[in-house]
């Protein structure tokens, strides 16, 4: 039977199929961070197990790290405790550890690809739902719980039923000012926050083929926000060029051997999907969310829909708008904002900072806006400086912070205060996600930049030069 890209990678990692149960899936690469791993190590110890393949696990600190004065001791004792536990566990079991201040440190889903740990055809897991990011390279990558982190540490396997398969095709050319983030928010608005639950998604068509690796990572990153376990894109010349010669990428004869395998990673013509959707690139405009889940998104020039036009319960919809302090049929453009957050595993890469700078260059941050610009890794910081983007940022009245997950989930001090409205390039607009009582509008780095200089929700197309 003809196979999909997903079938090829999944099937080649099945150690055994359990009768009337899940598959035992072998994991090639395992990322761990300070928040979801300590209890897994405790479990490992309590069972007197050890880490079976320490060279396949990679630790980095990101979720609760400060993004300011990283050279000083971490002030929050609970965060410091988790960071210490990660360092101690990594040292005890011989796991690579990029702690705070290490030059390879950064957000796990940014440093993995940067260092060539993420490879096509690999199975990759991490105790973080945005592990789906790595699917941009043609890997099967998804988030797991802490019990499964312990499973991978002690056996290099997890037990999962094979998900169903979905393909999302988008053909044509994206319009002016429309970015990969808009493509993802558009897909999620169509699928809703649960439309792809139970599925693994393959993205196909011109739009994804034309995208940079950074853009593909943004799209795959957000797969979880429509319920999908993960999303992937077939590797191509762009993929191979990105990973070649990175720190952990195979070299020499190993590279040639790997390439032979990677070139087989595509969906065969006759292969079948359990569900398939096709959208048109020209229907997508810069997007923004207005509610409390990422499926509640609209084109930035549109108004908030009426409850009776929404698929789902009216009670839930009304509760959501009440939290946001919005009304049905409100226009999004022109809403006064308080914060802008550029960063996260969704939009914390060099391309995102380039996009942001393309708008703020020669302009000034609005006085009513507090902006947090948080690069995804030290390598991103280096490149920002190399390209002189830091000068543009500074001149426009912004400050560049140090790498970490930051205000995306507000586990550190970067919390949006209660009631404040933020345009954020991150991935979740859930109630309180960016701090108790915070209100989040998800958007692209271009929309964030335009809104940061105008002080209100703004259409970037008015400020972009062709």
């Amino acid at each position, binding site marked *: 039977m003809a196979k999909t890209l997903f079938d090829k990678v999944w099937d080649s990692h099945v*150690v055994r199929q359990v009768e009337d149960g899940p598959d035992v899936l*072998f994991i090639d690469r395992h990322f761990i961070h300070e928040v979801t791993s300590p209890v897994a190590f405790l479990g490992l110890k309590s069972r007197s197990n050890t880490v079976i393949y320490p060279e396949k696990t990679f630790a980095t600190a990101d979720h609760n790290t400060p993004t300011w004065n990283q050279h000083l001791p971490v002030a929050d004792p609970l965060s410091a405790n988790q960071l210490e536990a990660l360092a101690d566990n990594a040292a005890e079991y011989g796991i690579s550890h990029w702690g705070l201040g290490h030059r390879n440190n950064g957000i796990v889903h940014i440093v993995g690809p940067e260092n060539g740990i993420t490879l096509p055809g*690999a199975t990759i897991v991490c105790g973080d739902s945005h592990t789906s990011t790595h699917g941009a390279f043609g890997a099967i990558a998804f988030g797991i719980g802490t019990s499964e982190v312990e499973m991978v540490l*002690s056996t290099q396997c997890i037990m999962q039923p094979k998900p169903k398969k979905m393909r999302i095709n988008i053909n044509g050319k994206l319009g002016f000012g429309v970015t990969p983030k808009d493509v993802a928010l558009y897909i999620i608005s169509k699928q809703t926050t*649960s439309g792809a639950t139970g599925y693994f998604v393959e993205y196909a068509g011109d739009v994804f083929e034309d995208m940079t690796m950074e853009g593909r990572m943004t799209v795959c990153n957000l797969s979880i926000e429509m*319920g999908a376990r993960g999303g992937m894109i077939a590797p191509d010349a762009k993929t191979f060029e990105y990973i070649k010669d990175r720190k952990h990428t195979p070299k020499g004869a190993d590279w040639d051997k790997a390439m032979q395998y990677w070139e087989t990673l595509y969906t065969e013509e006759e292969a079948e999907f359990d569900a398939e959707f096709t959208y048109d690139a020209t229907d997508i405009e810069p997007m923004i969310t207005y509610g409390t889940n990422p499926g509640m998104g609209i084109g930035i020039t549109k108004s908030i829909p009426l409850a009776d036009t929404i698929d789902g319960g009216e009670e839930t919809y009304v509760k959501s708008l009440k939290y946001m302090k919005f009304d049905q049929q409100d226009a999004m453009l022109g809403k006064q904002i308080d914060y802008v957050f550029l960063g996260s595993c969704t939009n914390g890469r060099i391309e995102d900072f380039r996009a942001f700078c393309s708008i703020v260059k020669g302009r000034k941050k609005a006085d009513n806006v507090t902006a947090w610009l948080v690069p995804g890794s030290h390598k991103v910081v280096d490149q920002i400086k190399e390209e002189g983007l830091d000068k543009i940022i500074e001149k426009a009245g912004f400050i560049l912070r140090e790498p970490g997950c930051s205000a995306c989930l507000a586990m550190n001090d970067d919390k949006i205060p209660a009631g404040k409205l933020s345009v954020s390039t991150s991935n*979740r607009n*859930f109630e309180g996600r960016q701090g108790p009582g915070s209100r989040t509008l998800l958007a692209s780095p271009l929309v964030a930049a335009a809104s940061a200089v105008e002080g209100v929700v703004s259409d970037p197309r008015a400020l972009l030069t062709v």
Partner: protein
Amino acid sequence: MAYDKFEVLTSSAYPLPIENVDTDQIIPARFLKATERKGFGDNFFRDWRYEADGTPKADFPLNKEIYAGGKILVGGKNFGSGSSREHAAWSVYDFGLRCVISSFFADIFRNNCLNVGVLPVQVSAAFSDKLFDAIMADPKTEIKVDLPNQTVTLVATGAFEKFEINGYKKENMLNGFDDIDYLKNIEGEITTFAENRPF
């Protein structure tokens, strides 16, 4: 992590008829800073249960005396979406619940529940409505969740529905086993497999 066996559970239930309840609501990120697995029940639905100053919100179902002691939560559609934090499933368990019933679950949350001894029971939208109606009519309504027979029953009327669970996970729940027990027993098979991986 060891958990108590699950066979048949008969209990009243807390109703939470909200859709798309995400794991950031079940346990907000600021409570994920522990390095041990304990005390997560206190912060279960923290920001929906308490005002910022710590005063309980009287109208939130988990705070209502009439539901107290229930071991089941009946949630709205798409329960447990978002973050993969297993802390959400721990907080369900630590709050004293052993079963969540919904017409639809997010994948990772469902998996996490099964791994920590909380039974996720997916029912039809119609049966979910029936459960909510019964609880609204009588807050002490008893619901029987029978894992061996894979049924969920409204005790007063006898109305019931079958639910799905794969045979492997069912055996685990019935016996308090987990996946690591299974995987350690096939370690030889795993190491042989590993030797043949290209990278």
